[in-house]
């Protein structure tokens, strides 16, 4: 039995502190929720914010990230982990803020939301940091189980219950794929650690069929979580059925966490994924972009439209992953790998900002009369009534469409640039064509907001925190669109810590 030395734990305590704060805070919130009276709900929000800010501080002011693995190779402690932890904590903070504005007005949401949000965030942090198949699965399930409940967590809403059940059943199916794949990879490598798998790949011996089948099954599970086309069927229903602040959390946090784990895994199993599975992944990425954008054209509900758009964005992000996976090939400069990995990291931040902004506005306008601001026609005349909110939404949508000067444009620019540098020009062309299609449905909402007179269905929610947060997000999107250099360099340097 491997002994767990106390000394190594104390030395790693600083690096583990963010996880401990989030985990302990989650338990604390659970107890506070159970023991406090229903009328004192706003305390839970403040406690959530305190927990998340505490974890942010522990991450920012903790020990400098190192390449040494934590907990005997279970978690990675490098800057890559820190980058994603900060992103997840930020997403959770904004989500809690959006949610609290709704809780004040609608009683159908349950206060279990706060502990579940914190636990889901813990799962994301573990998922992004996992350097062992066991922690990978543990993180994925911690995140997923909490999110299943978040999706279904509206009292008396049939659609939310349906969405939660659908997500749970399909998610459990995807987890089974992941486990089968892990079993085969473990059988091939003889260990569950990423280090064991890397050793096995260096030797490149044994039964490659076993490894390829295992990686293929694991890719199915990743594809489910990031919603790549044949595994995307749950996305519109679940995104539509969940409360819009939960949808925003899923579209950004869950997707970013799955991509963080996928990138780490790709970097590890580069030769095999970049060789055998590459053509299939390339086809799936192209099909994803085209199909999702075409279907999004026909949507009348803004949440379904954004759900399909999030599928399309998973396709763009996959292009960056494909460029990274192509680096094993001959005749490519050594800079292509970090450039494409960094582009994906930049994209994830930009994508999180614009999606959170969009779903924040939907949350803000929504729940006054017991229903969410879903129908696009209901946004008519919004620019007249709430000009700042409409402007925030417009910036987010322009950014999602990839129009300069927004973060979304720069994100696409870096990803497509990396794809071209990797010599995959046809893929880049498909990506550009797909984003051209997408401009139509994003602009349609803006046209409705700015050019149509207000109809009979007027959404008119007000909450200064959410309005402030979405305005801030819009400003950040514009800032990153004009001065993207800083974050881009940070993303590339961060990715290098992973590549070594």
């Amino acid at each position, binding site marked *: *039995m491997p*002994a*767990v030395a*106390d000394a190594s734990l104390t030395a790693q305590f600083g690096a583990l502190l963010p996880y401990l704060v989030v985990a302990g805070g989650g*338990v604390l919130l*659970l*107890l506070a*929720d*159970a*023991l406090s009276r229903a009328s004192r709900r706003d305390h839970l929000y403040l406690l959530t914010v305190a927990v998340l800010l505490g974890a942010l501080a522990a991450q920012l002011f903790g020990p400098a990230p190192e390449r040494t693995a934590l907990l005997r190779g279970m978690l990675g402690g490098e800057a890559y982990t820190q980058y994603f932890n900060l992103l997840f904590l930020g997403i959770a903070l904004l989500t809690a803020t959006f949610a609290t504005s709704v809780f004040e007005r609608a009683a159908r949401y349950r206060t279990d939301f706060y502990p579940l949000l914190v636990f889901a965030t813990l799962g994301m942090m573990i998922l992004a940091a996992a350097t062992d198949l066991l922690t990978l699965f543990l993180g994925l399930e911690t995140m997923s189980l909490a999110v299943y409940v978040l999706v279904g967590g509206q009292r008396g809403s049939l659609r939310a219950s349906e969405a939660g059940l659908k997500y749970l059943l399909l998610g459990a199916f995807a987890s089974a794929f992941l486990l089968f794949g892990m079993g085969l990879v473990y059988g091939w490598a003889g260990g569950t650690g990423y280090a064991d798998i890397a050793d096995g790949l260096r030797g490149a011996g*044994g*039964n490659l069929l*076993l490894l390829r089948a295992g990686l293929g099954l694991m890719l199915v599970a990743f594809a489910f979580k990031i919603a790549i086309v044949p595994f995307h069927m749950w996305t519109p229903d679940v995104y539509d059925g969940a409360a819009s602040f939960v949808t925003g959390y899923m579209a950004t946090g869950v997707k970013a966490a799955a991509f963080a784990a996928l990138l780490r895994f790709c970097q590890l199993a580069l030769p095999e994924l970049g060789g055998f599975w590459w053509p299939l992944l390339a086809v799936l990425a192209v099909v994803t972009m085209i199909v999702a954008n075409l279907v999004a054209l026909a949507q009348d509900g803004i949440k379904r439209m954004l759900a399909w758009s999030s599928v399309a964005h998973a396709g763009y992000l996959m292009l960056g992953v494909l460029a990274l996976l192509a680096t094993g090939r001959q005749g490519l400069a050594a800079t292509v790998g970090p450039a494409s990995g960094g582009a994906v990291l930049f994209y994830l931040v930009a994508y999180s900002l614009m999606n959170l902004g969009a779903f924040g506005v939907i949350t803000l306008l929504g729940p006054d009369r017991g229903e969410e601001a879903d129908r696009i026609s209901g946004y008519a005349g919004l620019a007249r009534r709430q000009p700042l909110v409409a402007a925030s939404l417009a910036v987010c949508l322009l950014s999602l469409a990839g129009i300069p000067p927004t973060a979304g444009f720069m994100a696409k620019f870096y990803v497509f640039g990396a794809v071209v540098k990797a010599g995959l020009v046809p893929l880049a062309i498909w990506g550009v064509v797909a984003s051209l299609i997408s401009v139509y449905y994003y602009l349609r909402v803006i046209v409705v907001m700015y050019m149509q007179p207000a109809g009979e269905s007027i959404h008119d929610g007000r909450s200064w925190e959410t309005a402030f947060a979405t305005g801030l997000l819009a400003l950040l999107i514009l800032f990153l669109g004009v001065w993207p250099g800083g974050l881009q360099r940070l993303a590339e340097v961060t990715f290098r810590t992973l590549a070594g």
Partner: protein
Amino acid sequence: MAGSMLPVFMVLGIAVVFALAFLVLSRILGPHRPSALKTTTYECGVPPRSSTEIRFFVRFFLIALLFLLFDLEAVFIYPWVVLYDTFLADGRAAFALGEMAVFVGVLVAGYVYAWKKGGLDWQ
């Protein structure tokens, strides 16, 4: 790799051969006198008398879930008890005790949550 898997495949092969052999043998050797009752689908238990899609009390589900949760905790505590002597021997007893305290603490938090939220009331 292939060599070490050989016994597994052998067991698989034997299982398939046995199952098929008994099916074929009973077909050949057994008497065949079908009647209406014999050819109906066999289910264990009483045949359903009405639609099976009925509402059932959700507490059953909740109690079963809670039972599973707190039942399984014993599975984790048991090996810890067995190993505790070795922890005592090399002076890491405090660490082991602390770890179990955290584990049980989280469980107790869950118990308090279930209790306060009315998960244990049969009303």
